[in-house]
């Protein structure tokens, strides 16, 4: 297990595209691993205290990582545990493995992910499991679980997999969703909107946008997209 601790409070954001695979690299490779700190390229060891415990493919991020972006992006196996908050794009494009965030996460967590598992104990912001600008499909596989609340655009353009939010969420849950499942335990804002397929289950209050018809177990739509998406009461 590789343990990273921020050496100081980052003045501006850091971009560190690291995955558990880094834990398998040599000390020198790890220390020299290139990250971005504003316009300056930095070595991982410039910004983080690095230590190891054992040699499994696991990362432990100990401290405030809320200004650190792209952690776990494209990871395919292994595990990342974040002891604090995490920045944007955590677990984007990931295909396998597991990320546990004990604090909060910012935007784009699990964006376009294809497999694996993400758990956030705190809150997340926007674009959970979404498609990046201009792309047609958001997450297609895997599972994202959030114990706290979430922001807007949860599972937009989702093509598969599962998102579960234990708290409340904002607007545009499952907008343009094609497949997969979103489960919201709390309340949320606008739901649906050009939904083509997939299922949204909600326990609390929500505002279904026009374009859905009442069916036996809930609602089906959006008629505007010729969709057969399901919105159900949990």
């Amino acid at each position: 297990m590789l343990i990273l601790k921020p050496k100081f409070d980052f003045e501006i954001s850091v971009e560190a595209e690291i995955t558990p695979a880094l834990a398998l690299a040599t000390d020198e490779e790890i220390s020299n691993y290139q990250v971005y700190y504003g316009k300056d390229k930095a070595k991982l060891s410039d910004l983080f205290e690095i230590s190891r415990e054992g040699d499994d493919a696991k990362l432990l991020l100990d401290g405030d990582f809320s200004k650190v972006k792209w952690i776990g992006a494209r990871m395919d196996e292994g595990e990342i545990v974040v002891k604090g908050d995490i920045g944007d794009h955590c677990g984007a494009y990931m295909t396998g493995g597991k990320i546990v965030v004990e604090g909060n996460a910012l935007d784009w967590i699990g964006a376009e992910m294809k497999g694996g598992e993400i758990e956030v104990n705190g809150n997340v912001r926007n674009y959970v499991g979404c498609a990046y600008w201009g792309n047609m499909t958001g997450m297609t596989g895997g599972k994202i679980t959030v114990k706290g609340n979430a922001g807007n655009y949860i599972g937009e353009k989702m093509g598969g997999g599962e998102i579960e939010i234990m708290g409340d969420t904002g607007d545009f849950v499952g907008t343009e969703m094609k497949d997969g499942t979103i489960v919201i335990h709390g309340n949320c804002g606008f739901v649906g909107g050009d939904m083509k397929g997939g299922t949204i289950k909600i326990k609390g209050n929500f505002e279904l946008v026009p374009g859905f018809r009442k069916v036996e177990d809930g609602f089906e739509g959006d008629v505007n997209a010729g969709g057969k998406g399901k919105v159900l009461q949990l």
Partner: protein
Amino acid sequence: MIEVEIISGRTLDQGATVEEKLTDEYFKAVNYCELSEEDFNALNLSEGDRVRVKTDFGEVVVYAVKNKDLKKGMAFIPMGPYANMVIDPNTDGTGMPQFKGIKGVVEKTEDKVLTVKELIEVI
């Protein structure tokens, strides 16, 4: 105290003075809050009175103005530094703060309206 939904936006006077922000004309163009007749009366206001506008994101003291075209529960503050004390700064990932449609409360106050220069000091 009444509950309102706050809208900020362009006005002709705000636009005409926007390149003279440190003048009295600009100050006058942006330092007020329009309320519906009903709300205005409910707060027992008369022209020239001040109100404190409060939201989850801040508060500001401005002059109260009656607008017959506004529906009850709506408040309008011209875009600018006063409105920006109370609007919702969150962009929800879009980059755009929410300048319109913020829930807040309005109450009558005797406090003075800060000048533009004073306002920037307190931020």
